[in-house]
């Protein structure tokens, strides 16, 4: 298992070093600095083997986190753990930065002692950790009941939620966040498109509520025998969607999902990501980008880009940004656009065109004249035109059908819970070649 964990700043100075196993010596700290952080050539793999010692590293902002081992460990586990570690630290003291780490080094050691034992990851759920690892140290006088409550939660079956939570108002916020990814050929042919979606929940519920969540997944609907009901046609014009694959927060009972296709769980308190999913079929692409590039001689280029919005006219897209790459030898650019603002950014070698909002079924265009310096360099390989936006619907067509809450012990029912649902579709990598 994991033999040690080191945290370095961008210069390679050690901020945290915790060794769990005897086979890892002090020189391992230096080996990683010399061979990876200070390596002459940029290291091209997150896993490095130096003198029979393996280093796994991730870099967050300019902080390096590295796990060391001499054994044949589970690599998936190590990286997942490093990411978890980052998450835990962030929830304790915010951004991962050199100052924050130095300011909290005692806390970090305490956390490392708790969540890794002999290199084996233990419960690393922040909500539970916070009950007994606090920045002010453990309150000296905790009652015996409290102590056993802590330990039973750390090791318990529902390790992500503590008991005895109470809210005056039981409330639920449900966000369906989707990233649409697209790669389109200049001729308008879709080369690849997929939606990576997340369902993020904020739950403020009392007690130990049992939740059941339903979406318009084709598999579920077909299974329960409901035929496509025309009255339920969603914004994108279909009643159910085919989900390629989904993964769940550890609170979801996976075996139940496997057998009954129902998503049931006892939610953690506060914000968490309930589910991730991926779809590739029948994606409604919110925008189409039509580029026209004409080379006028060796020193001039004309670019015209049209964007068309493709959703209900009543909806509004926001934060639209189109990025048109320009050749490296560009000397000057004249831009004309009817809407929004466009600017040539020489440092980024691109024309950036921004639109605050745009309705559905509309069209907008930009044209630019690019002057080039004569150069004998090889032909410029044109990077794709990329786009950013935000739309108030789920491009995959996913709909939340229900979210039921049951709490048998406390006397509030499903109707008493206030539920909010929001759909946001964002651009992931939305590119046209």
């Amino acid at each position: 298992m994991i033999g040690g964990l080191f945290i370095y700043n961008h210069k390679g100075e050690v901020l945290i070093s915790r060794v769990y196993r005897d086979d890892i010596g002090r020189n391992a700290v230096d080996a990683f600095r010399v061979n990876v952080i200070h390596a002459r050539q940029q290291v091209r793999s997150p896993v490095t083997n130096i003198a029979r010692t393996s280093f796994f590293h991730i870099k967050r902002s300019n902080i390096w986190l590295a796990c060391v081992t001499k054994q044949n460990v589970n690599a998936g586990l190590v990286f997942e753990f490093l990411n978890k570690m980052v998450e835990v630290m962030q929830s304790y003291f915010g951004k991962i930065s050199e100052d924050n780490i130095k300011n909290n080094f005692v806390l970090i050691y305490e956390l490392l002692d708790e969540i890794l034992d002999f290199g084996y990851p233990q419960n690393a759920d922040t909500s539970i950790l916070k009950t007994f690892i606090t920045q002010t140290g453990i309150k000296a006088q905790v009652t015996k009941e409290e102590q056993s409550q802590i330990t039973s939660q750390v090791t318990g079956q529902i390790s992500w939620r503590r008991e005895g939570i109470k809210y005056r108002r039981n409330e639920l916020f449900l966000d369906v966040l989707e990233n649409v990814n697209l790669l389109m050929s200049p001729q308008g042919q879709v080369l690849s498109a997929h939606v990576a979606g997340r369902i993020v929940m904020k739950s403020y519920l009392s007690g130990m509520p049992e939740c059941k969540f339903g979406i318009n997944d084709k598999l579920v609907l077909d299974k329960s025998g409901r035929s496509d009901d025309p009255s339920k046609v969603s914004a994108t014009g279909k009643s159910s969607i085919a989900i390629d694959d989904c993964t769940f927060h550890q609170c979801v009972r996976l075996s139940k999902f496997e057998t009954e296709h129902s998503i049931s769980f006892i939610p953690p308190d506060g914000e968490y990501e309930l589910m991730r999913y991926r779809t590739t079929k029948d994606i409604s692409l919110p925008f189409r980008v039509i580029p026209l590039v004409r080379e006028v001689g060796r020193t001039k280029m004309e670019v015209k880009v049209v964007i068309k919005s493709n959703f209900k006219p009543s909806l509004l897209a926001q934060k639209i940004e189109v990025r048109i790459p320009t050749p490296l030898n560009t000397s000057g650019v004249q831009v004309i656009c009817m809407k929004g603002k466009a600017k040539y950014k020489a440092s980024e070698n691109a024309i950036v065109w921004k639109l605050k909002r745009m309705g559905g079924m509309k069209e907008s265009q930009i044209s630019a004249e690019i002057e080039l310096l004569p150069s004998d360099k090889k032909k410029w390989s044109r990077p794709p035109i990329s786009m950013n936006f935000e739309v108030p619907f789920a491009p995959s067509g996913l709909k939340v059908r229900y979210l039921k809450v049951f709490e048998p012990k406390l006397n509030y029912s499903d109707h008493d819970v206030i539920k909010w649902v929001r759909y946001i579709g964002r651009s992931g990598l939305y590119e046209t070649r």
Partner: protein
Amino acid sequence: MTDSKYFTTTKKGEIFELKGELNSDKKEKKKEAVKKVIASMTVGKDVSALFPDVVNCMQTDNLELKKLVYLYLMNYAKSQPDMAIMAVNTFVKDCEDTNPLIRALAVRTMGCIRVDKITEYLCEPLRKCLKDEDPYVRKTAAVCVAKLHDINAQLVEDQGFLDQLRELLSDSNPMVVANAVAALSEISDTSPSPAAQMEMNQQTINKLLAALNECTEWGQIFILDALSNYVPKDDREAQSICERVTPRLAHSNAGVVLSAVKVLMKGMEYVGMETEFVTTLQKKLAPPLVTLLSSEPEVQYVALRNINLIVQKRPDILKHEMKVFFVKYNDPIYVKLENWTSYPSATQENIAQVLAELKEYATEVDVDFVRKSVRAIGRCAIKVEQAAERCVSTLLDLIQTKVNYVVQEAIVVIKDIFRKYPNKYESIISTLCENLESLDEPDARASMIWIVGEYAERIDNADELLESFLEGFHDESTQVQLQLLTAIVKLFLKKPTETQELVQQVLSLATQDSDNPDLRDRGYIYWRLLSTDPAAAKEVVLAEKPLISSETDRLEPTLLDELICYIASLASVYHKPPSAFVEGQALVVRRTQLPVRSASGEPGATGATESPVPQQAQPVQQQQSVIPSHDTAMGDLLGDLLSMDLNPQPQQQMSMTPAPQQDMGGMDLLGGGLDSLLGGPSPVAGMPASQASMGGGLGDILGLGISSTTYVPPKQVWLPAPKAKGLEVSGTFSIRQNVRYMDLTLKNNAMAPMGDFAIQFNKNSFGLSPASALQVPSPLSPGQTADVTLPLGTNGPVQKMDPLMNLQVAMKNNIDVFYFSCLIPIHLLFTEDGQMEYANQTSDRKVFLATWKDIPDSNEVQKEIANPNQLDPKGISDKLQQSFIFTIAQRNVDGRDMLYQSLKLTNGIWVLAELKIQPRSPTMTLSLKTRALDVIPQVQQAYELIIANM
């Protein structure tokens, strides 16, 4: 309050200052001081001088301070073992604390202090904590057992902690179960002792599967990793395990998903091939694998490395998911490069898509990436014949870009395409020739020269082109020089008239002006060929070349199977077996084996690569050779035999394997013995087997009937009559009263009587030699048979043979000398003193166990052997003992009987065995361990023979 100030301490007198603060009365000040100490420790300063002062702070009810002191202790206890003892009392006291968090903390920390005296004190508290009422303490204690095992394995075994740990597998708390599994797996991985092995039976598996649904994500990984080592007893069990593991594929933790994939990949092997179950399972595997590719880049990288393995093993899984491997513009470079893994699975259907994508990549910025893209296009061409034309035109387009490294890579690739599809695409040669000047890399230059040479007859100015290369001949790399030499010779053979000068020039450059022996040799060979026999030269130089195949970057099947067992682990990231990067760790062989597929598992319609997996998947690393081997073995024998020949007749050598007549040395081997042979049979006194000269019937009885203790294989015809002018020799080997015999039956099929028999052995692997002369009733009249026994000694000259057990024999009679060879059954060489002591009475050492541990685990080989009569352990043990395989110990584990056995060969090699017998099963599992791996197949065979035949 911020802690960063502790990192900036004053330099001078720092330690002294800290000392003062540590001994301060004020709690706050103490804590501050300890923090400063820890901060200095982190940046690498030596603060061990403060040991006593820090330990003094340990007695506190402030948990934060306590944790800091413990942290310090863990770091420095080893360097100050005597001082560390001071802390023991506090630890022991803390283990009794009412607060479970403190109890756990104490046990956790104590296990991290690697000081013998402290570990002694650890045992009692640990035993208590393993039974603690609080699950948090139990789960901590479970890991502590693994820590203790790492420090002192013997102690853990002696104190019975392993049994306590096994009990925790049925704990009510899932996290305790998970930690116990992790600890047990680690212990059984590192300890070779059979007692430490993690025995898994159906009940344990069920418990683990139940805990799987309830424990933390990390716990699930521990359990899944342990599950993957379990060998299900039949299809149904394998299937039910797979069914219960499948839901894990939807977990958000990539580690859980990958470990589940590992269990399923192994499970599918056990289930068999063409079942519907496997097909559906394969379908279920694809989406989660694809989803892994949208996680963090580092996890993506691990996933891609594993997908590479999975796709090689089961190409069907991702065949419809080509698109997800298309590279995104801002992926990190290691992810981009790894995305190549999927491209071997390009097929006719998706080739258009793949090619379009590859062409796009070839215009990227990163040089490495572009090169790989171009290479991949070439691979597609070689793999999918229908697409070759498309690929070639794509490559041509790329060459038109004139980007230097693209052109060079493309030319290297095109050379391979020419070799795969000769006489198809040569029309593009002219385009290639245009780019001659821009090539500056040896690979590309060599490829181009090869093309010019190979197709010299189609290139009008081939001579000019090659001549231009020749100008800077000495500045070229060897690879290019060699290629150039060959190309010009080819050119000369094709167009002899115009190029005579050129060839002269290159030959003199290569032979006279070069220091490179390879180049010079090749030059001389060509020169001589050309000057003596141009026709032969043509045949040699312009010979047809074998077509190249496409599977160049695949892993070897055995390695692949081994790596499949290591999915998700580092081994799968490196694509190397763990032994290649893990130091001195004992690796248990069973882990690395995929099952041999049952009869139902023929390659199915899916076309996966499904050859049965060889038993010894583990690459042999520290193979000790039994006997010094000489390449000249055959030569020796030949020499020996020739010297023995009375009237040599060449055709008789046909009975021998063809041997190069290289070394005629070693003539003296048989010299002495031969003289005595020629002098006539002279019985050696003192040999108990002088009955050998008795007649047929009696010999039969002696040979096979009475008192045959060891298993004697039936006689085989070693020398058929037509090969030996009418003498037929058949024989076998046996042991009687601790003497080894060769039992021979000689039959005279000729028309004339035979006499003057003599026999001699060549050097052989175990030094077998006749202990007395051959005593045959002489003369042997036509039609008569004689049974003779020849006592054998084991002190003869030794030489390793191939095959190992081969024995080459020369037999002489009054007519001629005949040669034949036979195989020695290895059990002939088992000695009666092969019983290893289980425990040495005097020194109380467990000899057998110690020897077992001493032999590296890589030297362990496992095999299923048949038990057709379904003998019980007693019967087996008795039978084996008759053949000098001794049972040392016997255990019953979960209804299976384990026999631990030893045997010794005449040359002193020990072989240890573990025989696992399942009641009422027609097979049993035999694990052999020895330092001399060569003998293992033979010993396995001996086991099978003895058990099957008695």
